[in-house]
């Protein structure tokens, strides 16, 4: 029986709204919810003990939403976060927006003041429904206790169906305190999306006549769990492929025909291939500006086949000769034509070899790209990397290996500093057997440093690699390159001693600052059973290379002098 069908069973006796909320979550198969209690949501917290739900008490509501986001990415099912009204609800907003921008299934539950008080500027009253309208897939204010089972079933259905996203449910306090018999409702069923047979035919014709095709894939692959179909297509055609930040791992990053991430901090071989291709097959990606650079110079000679679950993405930024909306796996499996492109494949392979990353940095300081490469190789396929935002985020994307997209959790659309540690919490609860590694920076980690307490409380064996350049490194890099070295408000030289901070939270920690310490540090990080933080001092002058300058074509890349 589907969760929704289970909801549809008539309930004879009245129950409090809070009990109906808990039962609705249980019916959806929810195991973990991330939250923080407070006044208006207290009736729901009162109903939690004795339920099948494990509540994870975070130390700030933003972390609840970000943990739920990561949980949703790993499981493919909506992550659930819960907070009280007013500041509790507003603290969720960044996490909700993060899920919206990256199309992550999430259900966010907020307490609200009692119905008669709504609109009276009551204590801890805020119009969270109105505030979040632009960043949710859908939202509800529950007006009737009897509607709770239906609304929750519908919310979960909306969050996970089609192009996933966050759904907000605002619960006035009286609605969850009153008792009612649940109103019956029909189960929610995802609509079938028929295959466009004409589109398949036209796409196969374009593939057959292509001499320089490129496969360009994004986060839609992970959302649709379409890795198998993507890999089959990639192997069948042998065509060069590139990934967006969120697409990494769609095909294993060590696949010979995979050229790497494209775009602003992408691999030159990937950007050059896009520039010269005659056919671009875009799967689950959206021509985002970080990927395309100056849009009118992106793949200027290519015809485009665009495949996406969301029809609104097709043609939004780039006209497609063939646009197909639907199940990505079904469509990819039907693209059976083979291009005659051997010279092109050899050309791309040569470019890949020519522009391969170099790790022979001078000096004895720790070179972060080399450290990350070694760490990801030793962590193996069981690892999940969660990232914060900044230079280290790009280094992870460039230098770590991924064999599945769920192994790389990164805030791509919103670029949320502070994502890494809460995401690590969510990932560990979603996949406890995984080796979860959070890569953070000294700027980012301070955004949610309090979540070290959550890690300690639940004994979560999160491995934190903190790359510390005592600066806001990415901002400094841009000020150096594009703002005439006018360094403004990037100095973090007064950072605390991060190892001491971690230890104060009860977490094992150590600091390294010399290249000779790297191997032992990685071994310690990976072999320690409990949570551990490795604080790494790196050269503050190091930049992320290559780089496409703003308003430039992707082939106008700046490179580190070689």
């Amino acid at each position: 029986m589907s969760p929704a069908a289970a909801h549809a069973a008539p309930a004879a006796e009245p129950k409090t709204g809070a009990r109906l909320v808990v039962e609705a979550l249980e019916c959806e198969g929810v195991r973990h919810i991330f939250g923080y209690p407070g006044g208006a949501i207290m009736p729901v917290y009162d109903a939690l003990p004795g339920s099948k739900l494990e509540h994870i008490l975070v130390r700030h509501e933003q972390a609840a939403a970000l943990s739920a986001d990561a949980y949703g990415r790993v499981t493919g099912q909506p992550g659930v976060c819960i907070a009280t009204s007013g500041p509790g609800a507003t603290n969720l907003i960044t996490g909700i927006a993060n899920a919206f921008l990256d199309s992550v299934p999430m259900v966010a539950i907020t307490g609200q003041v009692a119905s008669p008080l709504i609109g009276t500027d009551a204590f801890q009253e805020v119009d969270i429904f109105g505030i979040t309208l632009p960043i949710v897939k859908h939202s509800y204010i529950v007006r009737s206790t009897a509607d709770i089972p239906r609304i929750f079933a519908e919310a979960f259905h909306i969050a996970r169906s089609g192009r996933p996203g966050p759904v907000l449910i605002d619960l006035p306090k009286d609605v969850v305190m009153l008792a009612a018999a649940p109103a019956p409702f029909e189960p929610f069923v995802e609509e079938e999306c028929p295959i466009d047979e004409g589109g398949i035919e036209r796409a196969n014709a374009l593939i057959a006549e292509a001499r320089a095709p490129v496969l360009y894939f994004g986060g839609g692959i992970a959302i649709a769990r379409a890795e198998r179909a993507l890999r089959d297509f990639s192997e069948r055609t042998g065509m060069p492929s590139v990934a967006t930040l969120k697409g990494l791992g769609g095909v294993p990053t060590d696949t010979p025909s995979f050229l790497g991430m494209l775009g602003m901090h992408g691999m030159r071989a990937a950007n050059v291939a896009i520039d010269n291709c005659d056919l671009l097959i875009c799967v689950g990606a959206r021509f985002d500006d970080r990927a395309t650079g100056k849009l009118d110079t992106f793949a200027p000679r290519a015809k485009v086949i665009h495949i996406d679950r969301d029809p609104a993405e097709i043609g939004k930024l780039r006209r497609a000769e063939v646009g197909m909306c639907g199940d990505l796996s079904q469509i990819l499996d039907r693209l059976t034509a083979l291009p005659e492109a051997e010279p092109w494949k050899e050309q791309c392979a040569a470019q890949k070899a020519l522009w391969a990353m170099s790790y022979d940095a001078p000096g004895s300081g720790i070179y972060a790209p080399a450290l990350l490469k070694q760490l990801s190789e030793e962590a193996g396929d069981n690892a999940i990397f969660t990232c914060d935002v900044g230079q280290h985020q790009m280094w992870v994307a460039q230098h770590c290996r991924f064999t599945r997209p769920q192994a790389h959790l990164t805030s791509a659309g919103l670029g949320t500093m502070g994502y890494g540690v809460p995401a690590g919490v969510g990932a560990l609860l979603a996949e406890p057997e995984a080796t979860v590694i959070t890569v953070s920076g000294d700027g980012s980690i301070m955004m949610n440093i309090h979540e070290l307490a959550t890690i300690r409380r639940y004994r979560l064996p999160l491995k934190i690699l903190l790359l510390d350049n005592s600066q806001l490194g990415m901002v400094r890099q841009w000020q150096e390159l594009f703002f005439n070295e006018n360094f403004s408000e990037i100095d973090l030289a007064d950072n605390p001693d991060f190892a001491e901070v971690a230890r104060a939270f009860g977490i094992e920690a150590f600091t390294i600052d010399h290249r000779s310490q790297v191997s032992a540090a990685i071994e310690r990080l990976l072999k320690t059973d409990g949570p551990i933080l490795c604080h790494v001092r790196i050269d503050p002058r190091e930049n992320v290379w290559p780089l496409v300058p703003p308003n430039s074509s992707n082939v106008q890349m700046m490179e580190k002098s070689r």
Partner: protein
Amino acid sequence: MSGRVVIDFARAEGALVRMIGLVERRGFRVRGIVMAEEAEKASLTLDVQPLDPRRSLDVLALQLGRLHEVRQVSVSGTLS
């Protein structure tokens, strides 16, 4: 250069604000609004003008179509 968007939708709390807000956030100025409702169904007609000529009315229609309450969207006008 203006266009007209006609949206058939299911009445629900916040539906109007959601639709009009989406139109504005996607780069269109709302220049006229007419709404009619009957039982649980309703219809909203918006006269809109793009802030940037590259914004497509057809794409806007697809974006409106993603909203849960929206049943059907039709567009007319000189915009493509």
